[in-house]
């Protein structure tokens, strides 16, 4: 699928979800309400693990820097600080 077709598909499912809640009167069963609550948790976790190791044999330091970023995220809940510390740790560890 080309980029623009993919982009249109993303637009359709995103705008569709946003509009559905505002237009349609409905009640979701409790099970699916809880399912939706867990979706970001599961998807974000699933995006982290396959990409932490990286393709260039730097797995060890990448995992260490990611763990440090996790601690910063846990302590500060601050997105920019987490990314900054994670990257800084990664570059520092590479220099060692």
């Amino acid at each position, binding site marked *: 699928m080309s980029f623009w077709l993919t982009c249109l598909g993303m*637009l359709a499912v995103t705008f569709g979800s*946003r509009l559905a809640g505002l237009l349609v009167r409905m009640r979701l069963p409790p*099970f699916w309400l809880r399912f939706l609550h867990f979706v970001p948790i599961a998807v974000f976790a699933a995006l982290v693990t396959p990409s932490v190791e990286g393709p260039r044999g730097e797995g060890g330091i990448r995992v260490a820097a990611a763990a440090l970023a996790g601690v910063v995220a846990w302590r500060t809940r601050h*997105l920019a600080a987490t990314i900054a510390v994670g990257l800084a740790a990664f570059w520092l560890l590479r220099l060692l």
Partner: protein
Amino acid sequence: MMPLWLGVAPFAFAYAVLARNTGLSLVETQALSLLVFAGSAQVSAVGLFGRGAGGLEVVLTTFLLNVRHVLYGMSLGRVVPMTRRERLIGAYLLTDEAYGVSVARGARSFPFVLGTEVSLFLVWNATTLVGALVGGVIPDPERLGVDFVFPVAFIALLVPLLRLRVEVAVAIAAGVTAWLLARWAPGGLPVLGAGVSGALLGAWLTR
């Protein structure tokens, strides 16, 4: 609103730099911010493009991530009276942040909701443009390890969501599942599979 703008700006910047280094053009990078306007879905899409995922996998993951907006719409539609046209515009610009602020500040009128949404849209797109320009001139992104921004950005999104033990358990289960699936399944399937099964596990564990 200020803290919120300061929150989304670095995320839009990181998204745009990643998008450019995954091979998206300036126009494509900006188009996702203008047309889709959903931060975590945009970063996921870029990461999935980088893994060689197909368009269908990207669209399905976007759907999985954004279908929660149905809930925001239902909740907002109950407290803020809107005409049909206002619903269309309001829905196009609806995000986690706009919903959160509108509800937290007790928004009762459409102009308040719209003001919040438009300001976030402008900040998101302006910062996307800056990031896309910067991302295009980073000399040797491979050597810098720019792709490492990707897992770190999702750690930054994930960790604040983990308050209960069951949420930590779901995150670990989904993370391990995706990591194992990625050994043999290409593209976006590991994320979709681990995302759906993880969320099912969470809903089942809290029954």
